[in-house]
């Protein structure tokens, strides 16, 4: 059974990899990656830290202590203002500022405790708002666009891998050829997940290889801050973090779109629905900005977001949790999709 399953998987993978859609997206990704690398390399010297990455002028620990003291003083002042303010709008603004400042203190203390020197090049506004500081990461610059194109490409493939059989008419052979519908669908899903993981891996490996060549493995810190924790990673660390992060994202999006295609069995409808979903995934956080944060984890469009995974008051403070939730969504939508698909009439 397993040999037959593997054989089927191998043939489905080969067919998909040599499909026009996959070849088109792969070419675009390769070109985008080369262009990104070229631009990054070409503009290295014009950046303030540019090619001196790793030897940037860090300021001493006294500077960091001064920033921390100033911030703490300001927080006390804000609490004082809060006590005497009755206007609700104003109170809300002060509370927001306190939250921001407390987060900043958290980051300063983290830098202190890990002997990470303070630098003017850290964008603390970005850290407290977006949750990560990417000024020191070539990685984001080099891999963001290829990764986004990859996620969109694999999402399109997820929609087409089932519906193409119905559009071309090959479903009449596929679903009468001696393998149950559930197994056929699982093989196709397996192919999508394999392509997703390998594409993520290859793109990020290209970024990693470039970074290691340029800066070595001792690269400086990419500081990340969630609502309650702060951590930092180097080049290799960021590679693994990105791999988990983007694989989780792709896993969730492709899983949902794949199972939507099981419901519609039509190329055009599946692609249109996929496009709407991708739009919501890309912009969900803005659209549902005023949603109750306690419920945000249940809203897929806020909890899974290409640009804001580590966003303002992030829903997931760990990529492992993110991966777990993505798998949970995949399992639920998978069970629902397969259960529907195996009972459906194929006219």
């Amino acid at each position: 059974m397993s040999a037959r399953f593997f054989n089927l998987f191998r043939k489905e993978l080969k067919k998909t990899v040599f499909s026009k859609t996959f070849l088109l997206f792969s070419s675009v990704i390769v070109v985008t990656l080369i262009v990104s690398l070229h631009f990054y390399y070409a503009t290295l010297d014009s950046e303030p830290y540019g090619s001196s990455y790793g030897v940037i002028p860090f300021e001493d620990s006294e500077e960091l202590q001064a920033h921390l003291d100033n911030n703490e003083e300001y927080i006390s002042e804000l609490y004082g203002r809060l006590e005497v303010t009755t206007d609700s709008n104003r109170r809300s603004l002060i509370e927001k500022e306190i939250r921001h400042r407390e987060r900043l203190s958290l980051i300063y203390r983290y830098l202190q405790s890990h002997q990470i020197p303070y630098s003017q090049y850290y964008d603390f506004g970005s850290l407290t708002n977006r949750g990560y500081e990417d000024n020191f990461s070539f990685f984001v610059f080099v891999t963001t666009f290829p990764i986004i194109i990859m996620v969109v490409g694999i999402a399109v493939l997820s929609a087409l891998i089932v519906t193409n059989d119905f559009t071309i008419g090959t479903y009449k052979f596929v679903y009468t050829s001696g393998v149950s519908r559930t197994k056929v669908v699982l093989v196709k899903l397996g192919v999508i997940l394999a392509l997703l993981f390998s594409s993520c891996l290859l793109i990020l490996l290209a970024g990693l290889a470039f970074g290691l060549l340029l800066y070595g493995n001792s690269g400086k810190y990419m500081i990340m801050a969630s609502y309650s924790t702060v951590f930092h990673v180097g080049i290799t660390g960021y590679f693994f973090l990105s791999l988990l992060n983007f694989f989780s994202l792709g896993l969730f999006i492709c899983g949902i779109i794949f199972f939507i295609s099981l419901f519609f069995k039509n190329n055009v409808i599946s692609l249109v629905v996929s496009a709407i979903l991708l739009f919501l995934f890309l912009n969900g956080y803005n659209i549902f900005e005023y949603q109750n944060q306690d419920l945000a984890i249940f809203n897929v469009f806020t909890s899974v977001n290409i640009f804001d995974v580590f966003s303002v008051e992030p829903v997931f403070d760990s990529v492992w949790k993110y991966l777990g939730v993505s798998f949970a969504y995949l399992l639920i939508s998978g069970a629902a999709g397969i259960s529907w698909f195996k009972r459906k009439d194929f006219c």
Partner: protein
Amino acid sequence: METVLDLVDICKNFGRKKIISNFSMRVKEGRIVGLVGPNGAGKSTLIKIMVGLLKPTSGRVYINGVSLSHDYEKAISNVGCIVENPEFFPDMSGFENLNYFAGFRKNISKENIAEVAAKVGLEKRIHDKVKKYSLGMKQRLGIALALLGNPQILITDEPFNSLDPTSVYEIRQLVKMLAKDGKLTIIISSHNLNEIQSLCTDVVFIKEGRLVLKKEMKEIAAAVHYRITVPEELTELALHLLRDFQAERTADSSIQIAVNGEDLNGVLSRLLENKIPIREIKNVAQNLEELYLLSTGGDFHVS
């Protein structure tokens, strides 16, 4: 001969519309069964139910005694089928298509694929892209695909549809060749009565989702169909007396019977001996076409 395909009381509704009603049929090993009916009679629906593409609203399909709904993989492993027009991945060659679909069957080697390609006469064009194939070649590739894994039953839906005369001839010869050793059971749905008559051992007429007639072709060839009219109040008695001739009641309360000339004398004697007056005897059908029109409500009579 064993029953290889057993349809038991199949019903299929789409919404409120009944497409198939209480359809039962048994097919023995090695038979070639022609499934004939007018457009919209439910032939394709029935074939899709036989291969599991459609789920019956009620009733069961057994293939070699295995229920299709209970153990789909085991049941369908004995079936090769071409439903409606065979469609393939156009940018892949015939061989690549066969090789891809071979992954769904157990233990099929590239030699097996080459073998079936040769069997259907496609060995010279098997490495061409399918988009360059004619409809006849696609039909043959479909048969090759259906034959992968040595099925016991081959089900083809309208294999002669839209084919030019040469392709029709080729497909007919191919089906005859496949049926030669008597091990493969073939079910062909078609409008083409001449092809059904020349290929099939049995014929099944279907109308409005109901089985209206199932006969062996040799019975049809040997017998002439007569319609005998007796007084309406004596029809039941006449049917009872003629039960060993498989007499059937028609819509206008006549009796329809298929017998050869000698048996007709016996039929008439038996009625007269029992004092049943015969008002009219009509020869209504002598060949498959006439029988088809008669059974499916065509207004056709041979006087």
